[in-house]
């Protein structure tokens, strides 16, 4: 291994720098991309291959306390998927188990094996942040960060009620730093706190939440403004109210309109894009939702595609999981997390014979195929909720290969598909450039990661090289080479090295005056001393602010 490498002859897809399949060299030195290297630098022959930045997962669940609760109840599926250690040259490799929620080491190896080099856990309870850092420390190869859950914490809700938006922002800033998080996550704003009070659904974003002045709208506005004022690299990351319910597209659109003009990321929008309800059957609301996204540049989204097959639903949105348990009789975990958030888990299978699962599959594809701006509608399966991350190659094939997609469409249940755009025939096929955007350049841009997701000079040398293959799924499932931070981690399709990883986090400033108020709150209601609450600061320096706003 040398610290210099010239990747020659590959077709480079680097959309952030306007490179669209041009054959050109990519030079790596000391872990970063450089403009040029001396001629005697070692070469990696990529002739006939496709070169992209390393993949970036903007929304997955890989290392939260909730994820580990899921691991603890899934012995049956993981018994069928043991993972022997890869043959690494540089470190002792670890074994593990897979299934839809792989163990930490296996998660890192499998992401890297797909050409992904950066992953964000999308939902971490603040009080569990220490657990998440430990799990991420045991997740090899990929750089990682997480979004910390807010918006169902009574302390914050009281600031919203009192109109104390500055204090709310200071609290958010403190919590981001105290937990070592990267962004603010909202899940079912206000709805989790209501679930704990046995109120099971928020009807609209203007529902009173039992505290005067507090509505989902006010919570979203407060935290969207906080993120934007703090100039966080990633705006507020929102899982809307009413996930998974028919007719919820109205709530989703209301939420987007409520934040009109404010930068915000709406996550797994497939689960929030259903028409119907109130006695009417489920139907696709994708056209309506994507039309709004297409015309509102401040909105970004990831899809949360449902993949037909096994999944594990795991979310802070506990009420949803109760409904899933009650309707399927499957095992169910609920953990109410002290004055912060919730956690629900139900193992699930999306069957192509089932009408709703088929509709969900179609809605996700419609969102992708009707999206006019790949930079703002990004690839995710809400791993492991819509399907495991290991199904991304299959999803990419569905997007790039219309004949295959039509064949799969034939096989699903069509009961609820009347009038859906996909069933009417969407002919679009994603290009490699567009795939590079929805899996690399787009996530990097929306996450404010200036040194990732592209191959310009100065970028982290996170690079994936695919051998072309008429079977798109096979091509994306088995990259020939993966380079992470300049180190060749996949060589001839085999995982060979596991270099050190980095933690992506922010540490925004806040007014210390807030701490006096917060310490009174802690004394009254917390079970942990305020002094013990913050995690040890990650080794890596915080990502700088100001790139996002």
């Amino acid at each position, binding site marked *: 291994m040398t610290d210099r490498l010239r990747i020659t002859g590959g077709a480079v897809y680097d959309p952030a720098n306007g490179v669209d399949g041009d054959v050109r060299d990519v030079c790596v030195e000391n872990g970063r991309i450089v403009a040029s290297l001396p001629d005697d630098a070692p070469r990696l022959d990529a002739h006939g291959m496709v070169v992209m930045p390393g993949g970036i997962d903007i929304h997955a669940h890989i290392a939260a306390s909730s994820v580990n609760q899921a691991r603890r109840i899934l*012995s*049956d599926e993981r*018994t069928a998927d043991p993972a022997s250690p890869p043959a690494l040259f540089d470190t002792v490799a670890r074994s593990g188990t897979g299934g839809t929620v792989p163990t930490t080491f296996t998660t890192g190896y499998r992401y890297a094996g797909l050409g992904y080099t950066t992953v964000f856990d999308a939902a971490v309870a603040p009080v569990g942040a220490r657990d998440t850092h430990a799990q991420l420390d045991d997740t090899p190869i990929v750089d990682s960060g997480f979004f910390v859950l807010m918006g169902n914490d009574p302390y914050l809700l009281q600031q919203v009620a009192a109109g104390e938006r500055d204090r709310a922002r200071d609290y958010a800033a403190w919590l981001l730093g105290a937990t070592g998080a990267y962004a603010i996550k909202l899940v079912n704003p206000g709805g989790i706190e209501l679930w704990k009070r046995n109120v099971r659904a928020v009807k609209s974003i203007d529902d009173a939440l039992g505290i005067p002045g507090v509505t989902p709208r006010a919570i979203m506005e407060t935290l969207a403004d906080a993120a934007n004022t703090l100039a966080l690299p990633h705006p507020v990351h929102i899982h809307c109210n009413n996930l998974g319910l028919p007719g919820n597209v109205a709530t989703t659109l209301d939420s987007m309109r409520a934040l009109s003009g404010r930068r915000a990321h709406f996550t797994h929008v497939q689960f929030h894009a259903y028409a119907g309800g109130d006695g009417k059957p489920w139907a696709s609301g994708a056209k309506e939702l994507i039309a709004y996204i297409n015309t509102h540049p401040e909105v970004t989204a990831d899809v949360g595609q449902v993949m037909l097959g096994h999944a594990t639903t795991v979310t802070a949105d506990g009420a949803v999981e109760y409904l899933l348990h009650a309707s399927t009789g499957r*095992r169910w975990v609920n953990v109410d997390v002290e004055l912060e958030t919730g956690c629900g888990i139900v193992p699930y299978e999306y069957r192509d014979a089932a009408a709703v699962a088929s509709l969900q599959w179609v809605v996700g594809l419609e969102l992708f195929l009707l999206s006019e701006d790949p930079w703002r509608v990004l690839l995710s399966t809400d791993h492991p909720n819509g399907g495991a991350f290991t199904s991304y190659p299959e999803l990419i094939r569905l997007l790039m290969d219309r004949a295959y997609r039509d064949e799969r469409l034939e096989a699903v249940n069509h009961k609820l598909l009347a009038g859906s755009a996909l069933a009417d025939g969407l002919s679009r096929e994603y290009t490699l450039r567009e795939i590079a955007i929805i899996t690399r350049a787009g996530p990097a841009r929306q996450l404010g990661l200036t040194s990732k997701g592209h191959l310009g000079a100065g970028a982290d040398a996170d690079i994936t090289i695919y051998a072309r293959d008429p079977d798109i799924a096979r091509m994306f499932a088995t990259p020939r080479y993966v380079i992470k931070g300049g180190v060749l981690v996949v060589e001839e399709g085999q995982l060979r090295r596991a270099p050190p990883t980095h933690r992506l986090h922010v540490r925004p400033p806040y007014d210390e005056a807030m701490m006096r108020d917060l310490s009174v709150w802690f004394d009254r209601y917390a079970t942990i001393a305020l002094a013990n609450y913050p995690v040890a600061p990650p080794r890596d320096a915080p990502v700088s602010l100001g790139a996002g706003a």
Partner: protein
Amino acid sequence: MSDGVTLTLRTAVARRLEAESITPDALATLDADAIARLPLWDGPQQVPLGDVFHVRGGMSSRVRVAGDLAMIDAIGAGMTTGELHVEGPVGRYVGTRMGGGELHVIGDAAYGAGLEMTGGLLDIAGNAGDRLGAGRLAAARGMSGGEIIVRGNAGAEIGATMRRGTVVVAGNAGPRAGTGMIAGNVIVFGSAGEDPGRFNKRGTIVVYGSVSVSPTYRYDCTYRPPHIAVTLVHLKLRRDLSVDGDVPAARFRRYSGDMAELGRGEILARSDER
């Protein structure tokens, strides 16, 4: 079975070995030399089958395994076809996850025989241990098909979390028979131990001998269940097994439960009433 494969244990084994490589499926495609090279597991080490067994014959799905096999686990695990005759006491997990074929044990079987079986026949001439035809301890779903016959007694938690298939015990069954059954049939010609059918959803537990039914089952009626007569004919004609003093006209007290679950399961306890 002169044209089959015969594996004869060479000497007693000191430590438990795992022998899921011994299935008719595997042996049908291998000659004697290749069979002798199949791995058995001694903890983390592999031992060639030929070191433990004398191998005669090959390329056959009719397999005989002979000797004191009490320390050999997982024989016939995952088999889907053929005939496997185990002559002698056998260790744990015999016929685990078997999906087809016939597995005959001429002796006692230890813990976990027929665990998570999906099809085929497992016929044990002697006694069976705990968790016969059950799921692994952590499994939400156990046996999902096939038939298990035990001609002696069976241990605790037989048929636990089973969802399809039939377990028949000619002797007595231990405590907690059919715990967590989703569906399927457990039939005990002798008596059943304490607390049968706890957490049972839709399963049927038939007991000819004594049985104590918990209050979470509700008495419905005393009647002649037609499906039992059909099963008895099958057992007599196909399995050469009949219940002592059986009269086809036997009546059963029917209890439905577990009322804490769906309440759609049943315990049928033979009634002395005529």
